[in-house]
């Protein structure tokens, strides 16, 4: 029996790994009785060789699938070893990993076995076993299976901290080309249901404190980048709409890994587009934490993110009239828009400038990337830019610096 579980684990973890989201945050559950908590700041228990945080046991219930999406390892036309867990095996694995502090909880996804309802019902059974059988209060992230009965999706939302429905392909036309059995409606239906039920649950909890919580950590989705020809502008516009309308907590971007190399509908890539993926995350970050709108980052005339410079720097170079920013007087929002200055530094600057002048040495100590910021701030100690900025020169200089420093793929 044990050898069997090990084999399934190998197959079904391997098959789950391309779903990139790893977060386990934004929810808090305390254990009054039973065991487990979910923390609002995500905890990483380990990091994979590719540098991603392992927070949850990310795994498929099954890698059998009745569908045949071109971009997916688990599609039915692939000749691969297949396996399915039982509800008991998966619940047992989760709880024993959790007690050893290997994980924060479970991220349960699945291929579609028999039909969407059956699959959703299996996932719910695992969550139910954990919540009711083991009194597990840790984190559960589940996939809502497109096409499943709304009642089953509703039950999933009551059991899980977070639900996600992956859009995968950013436009419907391309989605249908690659996944003929899917369309946007099948994805948006559960997504809209979840966002509405979250709203209802929030309202009810205002009236009755004990009314049940529905996906307290919200919902997320994933977009595959580079499998289809959509521009970054299209992608950011889509993401921005998902944040404002569907109230998504996170949109994940996954650089396309050519798992089905022989499929003619897919581009041939030597490597997943990691730089592009990183730029999208940076742009997403700007929308969520830096008060940027998607059409400030890109627009109809600038449809692709600059691969050479990060999107905030690109924005600054396109809008020289907004700089230099005077750190002694500017508003928090204006300071946030200075390349090289992050949220934390901007807060420290605003909170402390009444004590004295913010010096360059101090900025450096705070971790501000002065070599970038210097062109965009007013500062006594820096050689005067006389308020004039020459975007092309700055750009050249910074790109050269990046190249020699071997720019790291990080956020600002």
């Amino acid at each position: 029996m044990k050898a069997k579980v090990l084999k399934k684990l190998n197959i079904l973890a391997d098959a789950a790994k391309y779903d990139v989201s790893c977060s386990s945050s934004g929810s808090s559950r305390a254990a009054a009785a039973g065991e487990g908590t979910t923390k609002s700041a995500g905890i990483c228990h380990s990091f994979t060789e590719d540098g991603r945080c392992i927070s949850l046991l990310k795994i498929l219930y099954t890698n059998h699938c009745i569908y045949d999406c071109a971009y997916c390892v688990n599609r039915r036309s692939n000749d691969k070893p297949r396996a399915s867990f039982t509800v008991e095996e998966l619940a047992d694995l989760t709880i024993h990993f959790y007690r050893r502090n290997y994980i924060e909880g479970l991220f349960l996804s699945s291929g579609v076995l028999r039909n969407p309802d059956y699959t959703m019902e299996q996932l719910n059974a695992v969550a139910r076993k954990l919540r009711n059988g083991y009194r597990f209060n840790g984190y559960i992230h589940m996939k809502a299976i497109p096409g499943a009965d709304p009642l089953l999706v509703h039950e999933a939302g009551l059991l899980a901290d977070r639900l996600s429905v992956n859009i995968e392909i950013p436009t419907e036309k391309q989605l249908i080309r690659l996944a003929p059995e899917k369309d946007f409606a099948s994805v948006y239906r559960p997504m809209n249901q979840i966002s509405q039920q979250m709203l209802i649950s929030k309202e009810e909890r205002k009236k009755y404190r004990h009314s049940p919580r529905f996906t307290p950590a919200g919902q997320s989705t994933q977009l595959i980048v580079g499998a289809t020809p959509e521009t970054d502008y299209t992608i950011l516009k889509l993401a921005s709409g998902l944040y404002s309308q569907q109230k998504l907590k996170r949109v994940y971007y996954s650089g396309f890994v050519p798992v089905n190399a022989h499929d003619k509908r897919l581009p041939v890539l030597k490597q997943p587009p990691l730089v592009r993926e990183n730029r999208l995350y940076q742009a997403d970050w700007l929308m969520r934490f830096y008060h940027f709108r998607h059409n400030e980052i890109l627009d109809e005339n600038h449809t692709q993110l600059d691969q050479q410079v990060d999107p905030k720097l690109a924005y600054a170079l396109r809008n020289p009239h907004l700089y230099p920013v005077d750190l002694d007087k500017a508003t928090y929002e204006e300071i946030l828009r200075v390349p090289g200055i992050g949220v934390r530094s901007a807060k420290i600057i605003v909170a402390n400038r009444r004590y004295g002048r913010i010096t360059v040495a101090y900025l450096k100590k705070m971790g501000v990337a002065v070599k970038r910021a210097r062109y965009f701030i007013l500062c006594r100690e820096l050689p005067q830019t006389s308020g004039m900025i020459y975007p092309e020169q700055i750009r050249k200089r910074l790109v050269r610096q990046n190249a020699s420093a071997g720019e790291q793929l990080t956020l600002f």
Partner: protein
Amino acid sequence: MKVLTPECVFTYDGSLDGFFTVVFHAFHDRTEPSAIIPRGANTQIPLGSIIDVDTSVSKATRVRKGVVDRSDNRNVRLLHVAFLTGMPETNMLLWRYLKKLFQHPPGYFFRNMLDEDVYALVQTARRVRKEVHRFQGFVRFQKTKDQIYAAAIDPDNDVVKLLAPHFRARFPDRKWLIYDTRRKYGIYFDAEKLSQVELKGEAFDLTTGHIQQNARAMDEDYYRTLWQHYYEAINIMERKNHRQMRASMPKRYWKYLPEKGANWQTG
């Protein structure tokens, strides 16, 4: 009372109360410490006369109250957290900080992050808290035959006590132990209350962090093996990025992680 030279090396018992007692004496006797070092520490003691200070709770309390009066409770907490680095440099930083704090009118000095000592203190506490956060993830429990979940850790800072509330909230019905193998003490939770413990003998293997084979629960090796396989299986070869992995999980933390340590094959 000993006659004091203006520059002295103070030694104390390593506790925060002990440190505050040193501060009390240094103030009281107008002595400028050249170093404040835990007794028996493995550091080079600088030249100068050495004064060994016995911890006095009442003196420490007076210093603590002085800090609260001039700032707030959160600031005392900040000092406490920074103090857990156990580094002589941090002790000197705290000393400079406290001297300034007591020179300024209440409420003014401690929020000014433009002051380099205030800033350094905040940064130091941040470093310690970061390690606490990391170890909330990196603690690896092993189940014993007696149903105790036991973990060995070897953090840079003395964070085991700061970890306890998190695990107590997480496993309120379970017995667990988190043991710092370098500082040779740990926190034990018996499903009701926390206590500080010191273990005799080799409870943990110091290279792998394993508990002795004959103390392990039957299923312990099974779940550890599953976990090691899981770690291998979810890696995406095409995206290999060792630099980032090491930045997030520095090598010095690997030895007690079953998925990384030397114990992968040997069990």
